[in-house]
């Protein structure tokens, strides 16, 4: 990531300097959310599907060990090599060693948030391996030397012009070109060449099926398949929570995934890999990297049910107006904010506070994760653990003092209202964090309490 990590609030402040840009970002993601709504409403059983998916995932968490062992056995019977990695470093070593064994120095990769989480590209590049991201959005951010800003739409923070300039520099497209068709075609030609010449391909895993040993990879571009079917060696990396019990459960999840993500009825390619093709080697790496710890936290383990659709990001008023990079974590948005503190409470203490707790994320989640409740609970855990900055602590203590003394509360409310009316500059200034990027509301003439007391008397 960046050299010095800015907290979410600081990074959002930078993001919000360009108002038309923020409006555009906000509207673009809201449009995706609306597509999701339209698409989900076409299925009368949508809510039952969500409930079913949630129950299947609950079962998965409760039987994880057995399902993983069953999956491993089936996969081995299918001729697939299975590796286990306790953390990012072990995962990255396994990949490097496999490539070394085959004397391979260049690899194509399709979308895998897990490898982002493990900072695999950086590690491999330091060890002399050239990794090319093949999803168009991921290739764009890779050329810009920045991480994806969204798990499904990696380059959603960029405008056509940014991509035009980038491709002009790296792919030799015409200067000033911004036509998406033309730019995508240039990327197609550029990446075809990579597909044709790379001997190793790494893909993520959307679902791993315990009863068949197969894993499913979904893409719209076809890049996972182009890579995997041409390479001598296919490596698939999965967080262990990707396991589902039976093939028929895919029926539930594939109906939910794309509709939740982009509003499509299903992704263009839903590839079921079971056995390597003749002469090919297939490897699966099952990764922990903090997941067993999260599993042990009763309040937060549900976050492991996530199927990475991104719906919670598209709907989140904070994400839409602060951008994915301000979360300084591989997975941004509401779900990222409940996953990240598990990895490092100090580094990610700011994220559970990057929310209004409006609950929209929980309402759209296809596997019914209680995201906003978890954001709230993380705040308690982080404050108790001393991970919350002093200033926030002072503010919260002051608020608790006011709120616990009714008479003082009434007096300060009256004082606040009169200050906002008579001397508005006292609050409408840059010292008040609530004034940043927004106007203070018109203060009401009286509080609800005053109104209630008056009307009760009458």
């Amino acid at each position, binding site marked *: 990531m960046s050299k010095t990590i800015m907290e979410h609030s600081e990074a959002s402040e930078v993001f919000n300097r360009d108002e038309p840009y923020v409006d555009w970002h906000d509207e673009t993601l809201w449009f995706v959310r609306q597509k999701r709504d339209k698409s989900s409403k076409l*299925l009368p059983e949508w809510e039952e599907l969500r409930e079913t998916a949630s129950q299947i995932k609950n079962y998965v968490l409760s039987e994880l060990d057995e399902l993983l062992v069953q999956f491993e056995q089936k996969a081995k019977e299918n001729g697939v090599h299975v590796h286990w990695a306790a953390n990012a470093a072990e995962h990255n070593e396994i990949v490097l060693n496999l490539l070394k064994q085959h004397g391979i120095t260049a690899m194509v990769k399709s979308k895998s948030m897990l490898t982002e989480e493990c900072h695999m590209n950086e590690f491999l590049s330091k060890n002399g391996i050239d990794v090319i991201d093949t999803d168009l959005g991921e290739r764009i951010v890779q050329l810009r030397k920045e991480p994806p800003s969204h798990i499904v739409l990696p380059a959603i923070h960029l405008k056509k012009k940014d991509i035009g300039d980038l491709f002009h520099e790296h792919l030799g497209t015409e200067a000033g070109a911004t036509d998406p068709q033309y730019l995508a075609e240039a990327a197609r030609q550029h990446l075809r060449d990579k597909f044709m010449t790379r001997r190793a391909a790494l893909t993520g895993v959307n679902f791993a099926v315990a009863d068949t040993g197969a894993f499913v990879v979904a893409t*719209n571009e076809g890049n996972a398949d182009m890579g995997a079917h041409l390479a001598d060696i296919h490596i698939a990396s999965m967080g262990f929570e990707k396991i589902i019990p039976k093939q028929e459960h895919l029926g539930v999840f594939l109906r939910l995934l794309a509709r939740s993500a982009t509003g*499509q*009825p299903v*992704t263009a390619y839903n590839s079921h890999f079971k056995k390597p093709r003749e002469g090919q080697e297939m490897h699966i790496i099952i990764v922990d990297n903090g997941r067993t710890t999260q599993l042990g936290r009763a309040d937060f383990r549900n976050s492991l049910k996530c199927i990475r659709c991104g719906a919670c990001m598209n709907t989140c008023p904070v994400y839409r107006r602060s951008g994915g990079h301000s979360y300084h974590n591989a997975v941004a948005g509401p779900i990222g904010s409940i996953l990240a503190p598990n990895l490092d409470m100090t580094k990610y203490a700011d994220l559970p506070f990057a929310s209004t707790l409006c609950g929209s994320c929980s309402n759209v989640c296809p596997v019914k994760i209680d995201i906003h409740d978890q954001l709230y609970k993380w705040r308690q855990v982080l404050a108790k653990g001393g991970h919350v900055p002093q200033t926030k602590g002072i503010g919260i203590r002051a608020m608790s003092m006011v709120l616990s003394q009714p008479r003082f509360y009434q007096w300060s409310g009256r004082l606040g209202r009169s200050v906002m009316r008579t001397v508005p500059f006292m609050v409408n200034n840059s010292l008040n964090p609530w004034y940043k990027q927004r106007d203070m509301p018109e203060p009401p003439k009286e509080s609800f309490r005053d109104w209630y007391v008056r009307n009760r008397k009458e």
Partner: protein
Amino acid sequence: MQTREEMLRKIRLNKPERTSLPANIRFDSQYEDTESKFVETLTAIYTEVVIVKNWEELAVKAGELYEGVVNKATTIPELNNWADFSLNVADPHELEMIEILILKAEFGVAENGAVWISDNYLPHRVLPFITQNLALAIPRSAIVNNMHDAYERLTDTTGWGCFIAGPSKTADIEQSLVVGAHGARSMVIFLVEEA
């Protein structure tokens, strides 16, 4: 091996109490006419559907649709005269030249326009992706309602298979849809009556 044991040990220690799987995982949003729903869905995802009586008629249609195109390949014996590119290659990289490919596939799904194809139908797995343009032919009677029905029907035990819905696409440049990302630039589905 040590890592594996340690991961499993931690999972056993930390996992929640056992819950049960939902008894019902099927839902009955049925379509009165699966074929018209299938066509409607595919049209929305940039795919043309062509109904033909038999393989011979398919060959005629293919001649019309792809007139003047070179590097045409197929897995359908009745189309051998139409094709000019042999799939009998050892190295799948050689398939890069294919301009249009017509493949037999197994069945379609009305609700999302996906078609199942697998090792059973393919000499090379990369074929449906590497070709510039793709057409899949399924029996006209082989259209199921939704993904639940699809998996019930799926008894495929081959090593690889895929539900393909429409041509390859991307919206990664400012959410503008571009058809033809890495895979097929266009897609046609043939429904064959006497297949």
